[in-house]
């Protein structure tokens, strides 16, 4: 910044809390849901077009997952992978296109209501409550539920035994991999029908990554659809039922994981040979 005194009051932590404010739109209300189209996949974000400012980041991209399947979105930096996830979760207003889940058009719902409709979202960063214990993190995941959630919590602990041992420890004190497990566990507490993961293996070691992918397969086997963005394209496509390669906010290649891995064009351009 050219002005050395710019913003200086905001750097004084004795009067201003340096924690960033929330960026999600908290007070916009949901519109009505409409019936979806017949023959829709379990989840489909169709012809999505939109962005944050004037320029569109998504240029008519379409993503779909069937029940209990794993869909992986890969692509170069700036291709709009995370933005597509946010659009499906309702954190981005679409100019065109629609999002349909389980036979309902949910395009007009805000993120909280999409959680109620059966979506679980794990953001890429800041995806746990650092000064709260593992158990409290899971409790907050179940905040919307009025019923007894102890059974779900037990299931999460069975899925991630490593964090079960640390349930009284603050989530901020855990290792990167364990923190990701808590984040996924938190999202599972609402018993979602669709779990969306934004780069779940960012910043974790290869061993932890393999472990995390195994858990994700396990989650999908229980009938939960998975939609995830991944930086580690090769490993992710290996477990994918369907893969999407996005470029500049539009679909470039679509196919099963194996097909994409076998496609020489995809290999050369996106998977590094």
């Amino acid at each position, binding site marked *: 910044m050219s002005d050395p005194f710019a913003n200086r009051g905001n750097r004084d*932590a004795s*009067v*201003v809390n*340096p924690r960033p*404010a929330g960026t999600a739109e908290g*007070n916009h209300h949901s519109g009505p849901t409409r019936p979806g189209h017949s023959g829709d996949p379990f989840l489909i974000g169709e012809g999505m077009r939109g962005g944050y400012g004037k320029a569109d980041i998504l240029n008519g991209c379409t993503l779909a997952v069937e029940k209990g399947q794993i869909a992986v979105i890969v692509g170069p930096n700036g291709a709009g992978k995370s933005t597509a996830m946010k659009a499906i979760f309702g954190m981005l207003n679409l100019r065109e296109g629609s999002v349909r889940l389980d036979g309902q058009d949910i395009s007009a719902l805000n993120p909280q209501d999409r959680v*109620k409709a059966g979506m679980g979202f794990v*953001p890429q960063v*800041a995806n746990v409550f650092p000064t*709260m214990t593992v158990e409290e993190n899971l409790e907050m995941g179940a905040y919307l539920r009025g019923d007894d959630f102890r059974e779900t919590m037990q299931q999460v602990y069975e899925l991630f035994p490593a964090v079960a041992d640390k349930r009284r420890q603050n989530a901020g004190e855990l290792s990167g991999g364990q923190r990701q497990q808590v984040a996924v566990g938190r999202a599972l507490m609402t018993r979602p029908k669709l779990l969306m993961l934004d780069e779940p293996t960012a910043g974790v070691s290869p061993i932890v990554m393999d472990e995390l992918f195994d858990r994700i397969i396990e989650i999908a086997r229980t009938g939960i659809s998975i939609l995830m963005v991944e930086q580690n394209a090769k490993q992710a496509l290996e477990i994918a039922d369907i893969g999407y390669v996005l470029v500049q906010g539009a679909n470039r290649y679509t196919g099963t994981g194996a097909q994409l891995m076998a496609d020489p064009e995809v290999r050369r351009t996106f998977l590094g040979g």
Partner: protein
Amino acid sequence: MDLLNALVAILNFVVIPAAAYGAQLALGALGVTLIYGILRFSNFAHGDTMAFGTAIVILLTWGLQALGIGFGPLPTALLALPLGIALTAALALLTDRWVYRHYRQVRAAPIVVVMASVGVMFVMNGLTRLVIGVDEIQFADGARFVISVPQFKAMTGLTEGLALRTTQAITLVIAALSVWALFAFLNRTRAGKAMRAYADNEDLALLSGIDPDRVVRLTWIIATGLAVLAGTLYGLDKSFKAFNYFQILLPVFAAAIVGGLGSPLGAIAGGFLIAFSEVALTYPWKKIAEYLGFEPAGLMQMLGTEYKLAISFVILIVVLLVRPTGLFRGKAY
């Protein structure tokens, strides 16, 4: 015997007054630290919220006294407290609606909100003076002492007396109860955990279905409740004067920062640290030194009482230099 006399003198002139004052500061600092942790700014209007709330409590106390209602040996003001807190919280919620909500909606930089709170401070300040005036008001009634000096001397036969005023005992009891209640609320209840979750990560709290408006409202109500409590106890213990409450903002802030802003435990520790330093450094230790067999030439008073407020700042500067996050690692890192 002299050693006992020295101990009693220390208790009487340092420990008891400082503990009561520390409890009052801690209650005030808890409110500041909650607002800092959850609403992300230092609320400069907190001292005047204390003043306004206390003024309301005094008016209600006078009303009760006029009706002939008392609280036996306890001050009538305690009866007036719940309604006083409710009315002041209502004003705080209105202030949030009229002032702070706008800045949240336009996502203003927090320093802008700090400045807005300075404005609110001046308005509250004026409002308090309009409501109750600028004079010093004594509103403590009921029994004055739990133990008075002659009683203590008769009981123990020591030459040095010890007094425990009712207001001091009440301050300590109420402060302990409200701190316990606050921690139980924050750590055990669903609403309290939602507040902590919001303070940790606003976006994730929103995605978990926590209503941000509800968290903000709860924060104002709790912080205001603590402020009115602190203000009333301080007023009962000493006296009410609008200007004193404007000044008490300084040690309250020092306590919150020294303890670590955003850390409730830190606010309590900071409150007692500031209070004990203020009292210990301005107390003439001559008498105690004499009991211990020394013959000091002077009063052994390190600072004149006029410099009381400066002590908080010296501690503040030292802590910020040595341990900028405060004694308990707060949110400011």
